[in-house]
């Protein structure tokens, strides 16, 4: 089906999944507030939220299969959007399942947690669709404000409050950069529509326009904050450590996925003409993010903090896909594939962290994982798979290898081969072996703690998440063909009619 986005009814139809999710979230909020807060009611909201996500996902799949499309307008209707939406919903469902168990062990009775997650996800889906800088800004705000609250959700924990405040202040600060960047770009081009900007920004027009240059620079900073690129990453470790664990997982995965989707769209639809200016910047940002993220992660002893730095390093890998996408379409597909593998592995790892943890988040140190193999053999095995997957190890790490492989392939296979970037990526992942393997060493090769802790029964949600993520990683790691086929079709559509930039090379395509 084809949408004409200038007609309000058709615009709403094109936004159907986003609308279903938002309206559903509002209804759930009403449902939660209708009677006095109780544990059953909060759980019911949580379970219903998962179903709402499933319904939304079904609508998205239906729209994707029916080949929905649109031209121009403020939102995109293309496979890239659907793919990112599905990644976001997958991580939302996992985070909600984990949150249900987490709320029980931590005795948190807050139905709002689930609703806020849903609202934030609605913002992310909008972000994945946005094709107008105003939309980008609105979506980022919708996403971020909900996450600020979520980070501070555990009222009894001072670290949680600290995390929320830090995230809020720095997030608001970065939004300022973003907004100012948007304003300057608007000033230079007279429009906020991405494709319209794209047709204005050419090498020629760009050389004499410092306003545009500054605008693009500020946008880099704004996005850099959201996806936690070095040197804009300072907030991430503290926030990730302090926030409730399911929310940390959600931030590490979903926020990153949505922000990267917008990153890719904005850069490759609006600014291909100015790539001479931003490509070297992103190139260097990717290099420092990969190297610094991995090196600092080596020194971490707290699992959540370590995973925070690991997610920073992964942002660097994803940035390689963005840089590569300048010259080859494989960049976008590799981004989607990578995000799926990263979602499963990171979510699984956080699920194990929740499984091992004690009430009050007291058991998160690497030392607490000593001899975990004797305490929880299957969870340790799954954790080993997640760690190897994040490391990008073949077969045993499942999809993680093909994810890295896909990005390497995009980088080396573009018309301007980024071989040095690929080599740096590879060396960075060798560094990352230091801390991913450390987890395995502690779990399998160190003796058990002197006083074994009592084995807490695992919640259904957590065990399902661990089992299903590990199994999915392994299966798609051996038979990736189907997934590769799906992701290679999830390209963003670029609407600029007259693209003044050098044409995207068609030389190396499968």
């Amino acid at each position: 089906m084809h949408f004409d986005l200038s007609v309000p009814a058709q615009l709403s139809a094109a936004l159907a999944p986003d609308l279903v999710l938002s309206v559903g979230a509002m209804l759930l909020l009403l449902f939660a507030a209708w009677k006095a807060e109780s544990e059953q009611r909060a759980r019911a909201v949580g379970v219903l939220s998962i179903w709402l996500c499933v319904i939304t996902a079904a609508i998205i799949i239906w729209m994707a299969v029916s080949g929905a499309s649109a031209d121009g307008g403020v939102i995109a209707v293309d496979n890239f959007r659907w793919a990112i939406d599905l990644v976001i919903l997958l991580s939302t469902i996992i985070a909600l399942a984990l949150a249900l168990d987490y709320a029980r062990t931590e005795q948190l009775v807050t139905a709002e947690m689930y609703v806020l997650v849903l609202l934030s996800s609605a913002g992310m889906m909008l972000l994945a669709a946005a094709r107008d800088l105003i939309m980008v800004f609105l979506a980022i705000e919708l996403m971020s404000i909900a996450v600020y609250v979520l980070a501070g959700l555990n009222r009894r924990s001072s670290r949680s409050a600290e995390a929320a405040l830090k995230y809020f202040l720095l997030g608001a600060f970065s939004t300022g950069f973003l907004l100012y960047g948007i304003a300057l770009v608007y000033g230079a081009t007279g429009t906020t529509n991405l494709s319209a900007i794209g047709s204005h920004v050419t090498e020629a027009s760009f050389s004499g326009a410092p306003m545009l240059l500054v605008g693009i620079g500020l946008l880099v900073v704004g996005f850099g904050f959201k996806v936690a690129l070095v040197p804009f990453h300072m907030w991430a470790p503290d926030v990730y450590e302090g926030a409730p664990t399911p929310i940390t997982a959600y931030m590490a995965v979903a926020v990153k996925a949505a922000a990267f989707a917008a990153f890719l769209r904005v850069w490759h639809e609006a600014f291909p003409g100015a790539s001479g200016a931003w490509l070297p910047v992103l190139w260097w940002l990717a290099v420092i993010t990969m190297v610094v993220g991995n090196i600092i992660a080596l020194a971490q002893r707290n699992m959540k903090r370590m995973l925070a730095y690991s997610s920073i390093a992964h942002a660097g890998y994803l940035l390689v896909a963005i840089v590569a996408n300048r010259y080859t379409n494989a960049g976008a597909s590799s981004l989607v594939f990578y995000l799926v593998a990263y979602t499963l592995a990171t979510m699984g790892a956080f699920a194990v962290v929740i499984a091992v943890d004690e009430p009050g988040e007291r058991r998160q140190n690497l030392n607490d994982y000593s001899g975990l193999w004797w305490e929880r053999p299957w969870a340790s095995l799954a954790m080993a798979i997640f760690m190897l997957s994040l490391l990008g190890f073949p077969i045993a790490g499942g999809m993680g290898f093909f994810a890295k492989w896909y990005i390497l392939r995009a980088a080396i296979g573009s018309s301007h081969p980024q071989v040095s970037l690929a080599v740096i990526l590879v060396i960075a992942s060798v560094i990352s072996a230091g801390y991913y393997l450390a987890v395995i060493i502690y779990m399998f090769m160190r003796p058990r703690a002197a006083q074994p802790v009592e084995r807490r029964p695992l919640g259904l949600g957590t065990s399902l998440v661990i089992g299903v993520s590990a199994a999915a990683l392994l299966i798609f790691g051996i038979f990736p063909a189907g997934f590769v086929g799906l992701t290679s079709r999830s390209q963003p559509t670029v609407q600029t009619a007259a693209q003044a930039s050098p044409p995207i090379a068609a030389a190396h395509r499968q």
Partner: protein
Amino acid sequence: MQDFLTSINYNGWVLPALLIIPLVGALVILIQSALARDDGTLAAAPSARWVALITFLVELVVSLGLWWSFDPGSSAWQARVSTAWIPQWGARFDVGVDGISLFMVLLTTFLMPLSVLGSWTSVKTKVRSYYALMLILTTGMIGVFLALDLLLFYLMWEIMLIPMYFIIGVWGGERRIYASIKFFIYTMLGSLLMLVGIIYLWMHSGDPFTGQLSFSYDQILQHAAVSSRAALWLFGAFFLAFAIKVPMFPFHTWLPDAHTEAPTAGSVILAGIMLKMGTYGFLRFALPLFPGAALTPWIRNLILILAVVGILYGALVAMVQPDFKKLVAYSSVSHLGFVMLGIFSLTLQSVQGALMVMINHGISTGALFLLIGMIYERRHTRMIDAYGGIARVMPMFAALLTLVSMSSIGLPATNGFVGEFLVLLGSFKTQPWFVLFGTIGVILAACYLLWAIKRIIYHRLDKPENEHLSDLNRRELLMMGVLAAAILWIGIYPAPILKRMERSAGNFVEQVQTGAAASNAPRLGMRRAR
């Protein structure tokens, strides 16, 4: 025999079966472990080792058919099986053997049951996981030797790292964690750069008519068009991966740690099979794919120098080791130097010799590690000083240690002689000076091993702890008997083995030399420069 094999369509299923059989065994153990409610100690789970042993024996029997079904008159891929795997990227599940990989596969299936017997009583904790890892490891190792698709090869190359990492790290000696992580990171650094090389090669592997990209070894060999400058870098990436695995001096530092800290079976597999993957990689990939780069005079000479330095350095360091296991570990550096010398001398005899050394080193060093494991189980020390005169209490052990040491030194009528002699003979034609230094390595090998066994089994029996050591039991005698038979058989009658590797070795030499000639004569060669 051949008729029987043909009647069951042996060549059509043997190679996939060799990859699947160990996985089935691992699955059985995994199911056992999921059902069991115990902690997996040897007392609680003795059946796991039986499952492993039976699986490996089945694997051995199945693989032995290759000996007869293999056609020595052909240098083409045999028993080949090829099916689609990831069509979008042109990756296939493509396996086959030639005269080079045949013996590596047989060596693997031969050593694995012995490794199980070698850990029969010495592995006491988490028995199920241990044997399951050994089975998975076998699939990886055989896969490396069989893969004819570069992506499949890479996956197999990496996958065997994990089980070995766990085997060293969980069941190893005191410094096992350090040794295992060093082993892992060294190997991974090398292989990831090779991965970048593989992707680059794949991007330039397009079929000239259809433009279809592929990881197929044959297609890349035929059509890969890279500039000679890129070929140099690519060779460097492959070289690093393989040189670390071999290990060549100066990339060998992971080896003494890993070999010493690994449990007995781990050392046997590491030395016996996994080191051969490095040299196999040179034979199969690094040289045939980039002959021009590999035979650039300065590169070739550098590698030959490193090989000879490895021979001498390994031998000299082995001589001063107080730890017998470390001594054997360093002797591997020395032996593998011979293999590299043989490969890069590039004559038929030297390459055949290199292949023979690869087989012999697997048998002799595997046997040495098993023998060390036996006395370690009895005395819990590997220090040479702690023994002395134990020939009196362990006569069978002494006899077998002497025989195995002779074979490792390369005494005529043992297998060691055949390989090293062929390497030196073949290399002398092209590289006389390097051979001169290599020969000194043979003498040094006699020094360090004879000196060590003198101090262990002869001298006076002056340590009271050693007076009551029991001699080898039936299980140990069985293991060593099989190995001794192999040592003598190859030493006396190597012709059937040489016959089977001759065509492939000759083909390899020819391929590399014509390839190098073609790439050194620009515009005339078949290789297109982009």
